[in-house]
């Protein structure tokens, strides 16, 4: 399967401390790729480098075969690489529908200023249908007109996922999307992500619940102390004694 997102030798220091250390990474269309690892392993920082939020100190990021290392996150989002954040970044004063609409509309930068003089958006460029579809997919339809600042943290993660989907991505980077959800909700989310992958998206996520990882993941990366220590199918990786001792701190 073709790799949508690739990273080679990705390295990031913060205040001189090595946080991400020469990570090689591939995410393929149609697969769910999961990154696991203890807190502070550098998973979020790796996402930052992949998604243009922070520029890596060394190494390169490739999206659909093009070098995108230096692109900022908005440019990446417009070319199909969307992400969510561990700490919610939804727009708290806007409704859920508006949160998604913003992302759906951001594709086209041209014509933004016509609004200043009161010209309405051309009908063909309205994105209500797309937003409605994503809302329904996520089961957020009833909350469409709720101001996002009033939602629970788990729901905020869903809204953020919805926002990422509305950018029309081919690659999704999700930072702990299931945090704040209870077990059944998390399971449904994972099924949804599986369905998304089946639509030929590359779904990459950070997840702690290894049972879910086992069920959903096609490929697992294990990160520790900034390095991607092992990768492979969940069957192979998660059964390894050294990996479980790493993740649970148990001597085996």
């Amino acid at each position: 399967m073709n790799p949508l997102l690739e990273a080679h030798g990705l390295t990031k220091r913060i205040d001189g401390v090595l946080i991400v250390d020469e990570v090689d990474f591939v995410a393929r269309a149609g697969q769910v790729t999961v990154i696991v690892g203890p807190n502070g392993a550098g998973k979020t920082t790796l996402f930052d480098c992949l998604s243009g939020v922070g520029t890596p100190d060394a190494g390169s990021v490739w999206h659909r075969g093009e070098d995108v290392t230096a692109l900022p996150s908005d440019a990446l989002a417009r070319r199909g690489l969307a992400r969510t954040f561990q700490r919610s970044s939804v727009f708290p004063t806007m409704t859920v529908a508006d949160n998604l609409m913003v992302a759906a509309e951001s594709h086209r930068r041209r014509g933004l200023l016509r609004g200043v003089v009161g010209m309405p958006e051309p009908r063909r460029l309205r994105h209500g249908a797309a937003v409605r579809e994503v809302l329904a997919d996520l089961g957020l339809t009833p909350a469409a007109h709720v101001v996002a600042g009033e939602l629970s943290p788990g729901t905020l993660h869903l809204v953020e996922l919805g926002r990422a989907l509305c950018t029309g991505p081919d690659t999704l980077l999700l930072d702990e999307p299931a945090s704040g959800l209870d077990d059944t909700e998390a399971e449904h989310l994972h099924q949804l992500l599986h369905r998304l992958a089946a639509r030929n998206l590359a779904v990459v996520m950070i997840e702690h619940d290894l049972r879910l990882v086992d069920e959903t993941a096609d490929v697992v990366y294990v990160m520790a102390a900034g390095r991607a220590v092992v990768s492979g199918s969940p069957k192979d990786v998660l059964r390894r004694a050294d990996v479980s001792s790493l993740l649970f701190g148990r001597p085996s």
Partner: protein
Amino acid sequence: MLTLELALAGLGIGSIAALAGLGLLVTYRFTGVFNLAFGAIAMATAYLLWQQVHVWHWPIGLAAPLDLLVICPLFGVLLERSVFRPLQRRGASTAEQLVASLGVLIVLLGMATVIWGAQARLDAPSIVPYRQLRLSGRLQVPLSTVVDLGVIVMVGLALVIGQHTRLGLEVRAVVERRSLAELAGLRVNRVAALGWAIGCALAGIAGVLMAPTMRLQPQGLTLVMLETMAVVVVARLTSPLWAIASALLIGVGQAELTRVRVNGSAEALLDALKSNLFVVVLLLALLMLRRLDERAAPDAGLAARLPTARGRVEARAWWLLPALTLTVPVLLSAQDRRTALAVPALAIVLVSVVVVSGYGGQISLGQAGFAGLGALVAGRLAAGTIPGLPRVPGALVLVLVPLLVLPVGLLMGWPAIRRRGLFLALTTFAFAVTISRFVFDQPAITTGVVVHPPDAFGSDNNFYVLELLCLGIALVLVHNLHTGRLGRALTAVRDDEMGAQASGIDVRFLKLLVLAASAALAALGGALLAMGSRAFDPSAFDPILGLIWFAVVVVFGVDSASGAVIGAGMLVALDAGAPSGTSILVIGVAALFLGRLPGGLVHTLSRLVDATMGGRVAAASVRVPVAPTRLTPTGRRALARTLHRPSSVRGAAP
């Protein structure tokens, strides 16, 4: 060539700036609050000493220690207790705390103006007798410089020694990580009180030392003190040594410049530079220093937002109030109506603040600069004295002014948008001060500039109609900025920059857009303001006014255009009808109590009414027609959880 004599002369002003900077730095490090009020505290202390010495005839040897060692520190503790501790306990954002310190500044400014008047006094008492000390040969140094330097050394020593006491250790813990220190049970409040006491005492000392070197005047002295912020910015809000060193360097540099002579048009520029090096350094440091934001505030960076209406709009009925405000002048006498000409013009300026701060989420303290530029350009366009541009007739001026000032907004915005929150606010302020000193205060540029209303609108009545027309157009454009695709994108940027960027929004472009749009609007307002009074008056665009205008907008609701109109009416009415300084005092007090009115006056009122009538959601919001769909379990839960929260669907109450 540097000369020793000039260097010594420069050390005087440099050490005063160092003291002021140290005070600002101590308060910031101890409490996390960037205390803009320090300028006014310095000014008020200087006035207090003047009152004691010249009016009450107290011996200065008694008054000065009382003021500096007792009253100033107590005032600092009072500020901490009554204003900033409640804010910090509530978890108020950096922006809210900045506004509160702005409130303190404005209250002190208002009080000083009410008590001592706005006129300048030349007889500020000096705590150091005037004497020259002979160093060697012909080299002399004023006693005051020696004292200034001595104070610096003493304060520096006290800070160093204090670090090793128990309290000093606590201070360092708090400075490192406020949130953690609180968890660890450290006495954060005591540290904060200490920070405020030291900060206010140092501000007072700086003010008392500074006043005799120049005139005693509320706005003027406050502004001069504020300019010394330069040394704190150069020190990146961290290093006291850098602050002291840069203060002394700038002081010496300023003195050495007096030896430089040039001829021709550069002479005026050089003259301006001689007395305004601090401003130039402030602006350059803010525009050019790298990694300013990240280093400065370990805890503060994230929540630099002002409280807004949280996605709600005031009901249309609220526009009755501003409409009423604008019809009042019709009922007034001819004399008062002329005064009232300032209302729509000022309303446009205030709306420009709403655009940049309320819609764009960027604190702008520099609108006075753009407004003044608008007035100046209007006058010179009509007279045909702008090089390269023909004489422009009539109302066309009002079309061209915003278009000509807009690029200036872009020019400032381009480097400035790298900054966020506090530093962007300071950048806009520094820009306004620079414009004021290097453009408005230059006789070559401003003398003889007359600004007339366009011919067809010469009478006060006609001009008022023209103003209303301009205000109407401005309000429509601004409304469009807040609705539709553009409005949604702007709100997104205001709400969460990182999230907006991850959603594909070009954040830099939008920030630049609001900065430029608000500069253009402010210019239009400034031009009308000057036309109404038929003159270009630099003091009508004093940078301090920019601070006051910003406070007015925040008080009336930072994202409320109708509030801006009402605020303009109130400001003009108070200025005309009440003793000088009252309007400033009222605004300052209101800004201090902002914590009780989240979202501003207009939204607080409208929320009270809406509580009974049902709220509405944001202006920019789309209504996605919701088909009755089958819910997924996740959705059902999401909804259940949502509906369990009180008041959620009506989207009110924070």
